[in-house]
């Protein structure tokens, strides 16, 4: 299992097409892991780019951490990963909570990012939407675990149930992830989003509860384009080939 040691944690990562001239770095969402990119979306990008996927701390096969899930800490982690891999600048893509981390990184380290793609990130101010996203995330895991379409939770095996249960118990009860995100509720209004200089692609599901967040980001980011695809918050699973090709086209296109 490829891991990198960062200052405060050990991170699981996967790389594809190492040696390509440009890199795409991809950040998954809350309660999921890098597998959301690994099977379909990343291989499309790897036709041309060096692709780096990693499990956020507390997720997937990375180390658990009780603290530091605020966007500043998570963008520090992202930067530490880039430095460790000696990546001077990357195209950056994030899904949901991972998109918020990508936005924060673009604000703090604009010179490190070439183009920015944000998929289905909610506005942290809308706690109701955040809760919906949370529910979606749980269903997404069930979807992954069971290999069933739609959103109907289905029967899980005992070992899977125990793994899921441990993940939620840890993140929601033993870590500060909820409180840390509560403190980010003004991120869209105070967080410097309007100063993001990057060419930005926003991808949202037509039926998603996060559509208003996509519209708000489009309005605030100077050079942003909003793309709607069929589906809801789960579009990376529902439309992986559409998203993979949209990202590839976006990163390839010259100004």
């Amino acid at each position, binding site marked *: *299992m*490829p891991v990198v040691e960062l200052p405060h944690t050990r991170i699981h990562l*996967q790389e*594809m097409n190492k040696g390509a001239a440009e890199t795409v770095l991809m950040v998954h969402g809350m309660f999921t*892991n*890098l*597998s*959301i990119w*690994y*099977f*379909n979306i990343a*291989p*499309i990008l790897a036709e041309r780019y060096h692709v780096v996927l990693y*499990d956020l701390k507390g997720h*997937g*096969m990375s180390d658990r951490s009780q603290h530091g899930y605020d966007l500043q800490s998570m963008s520090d982690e992202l930067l530490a990963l880039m430095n460790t891999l000696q990546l001077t600048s990357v195209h950056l893509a994030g899904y949901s909570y991972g998109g918020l981390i990508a936005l924060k990184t673009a604000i703090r380290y604009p010179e490190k990012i070439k183009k920015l793609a944000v998929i289905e990130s909610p506005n942290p101010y809308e706690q109701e939407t955040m809760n919906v996203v949370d529910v979606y995330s749980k269903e997404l*895991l069930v*979807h*992954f*675990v*069971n*290999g*069933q*379409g739609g959103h109907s939770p289905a029967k*899980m*095996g*005992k*070992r*899977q149930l125990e*793994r899921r249960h441990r993940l939620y118990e840890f993140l929601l009860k033993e870590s500060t992830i909820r409180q840390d995100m509560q403190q980010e509720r003004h991120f869209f209004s105070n967080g410097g989003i309007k100063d993001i200089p990057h060419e930005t692609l926003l991808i949202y599901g037509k039926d998603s509860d996060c559509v208003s967040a996509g519209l708000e980001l489009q309005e605030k980011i100077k050079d942003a384009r909003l793309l709607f695809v069929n589906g809801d918050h789960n579009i990376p*699973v529902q439309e*992986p080939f559409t998203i993979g090709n949209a990202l590839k086209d976006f990163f390839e296109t010259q100004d």
Partner: protein
Amino acid sequence: MDQLTQPAKLSEAEILPVLKQFITEVIGEEFVEDLDITAASSFTKDLEMDSIEIVAFSEKVKNYFGKDIDFTGWLSNMDLDQIISLNLGDITKYIQSCL
């Protein structure tokens, strides 16, 4: 186990035990003891593997069988539902066809 390189031309019957070993390494021996792993075993229904464990399994396959097979490329043509319903016989056949 996944450090070996250049496996000789293997039969399907020889590949299956290698895959079983990878599954043991990914999900742990204590769970494998309770499972009857055969060519008909599917990732999720029978082996109860989730997507990140399938990633770890894929990495082991790639490291062991090397550049002769493009395992991730093969998987990337399937949607997630197809991937997680694959059984070990499907994977064995694919690997065998590439060696």
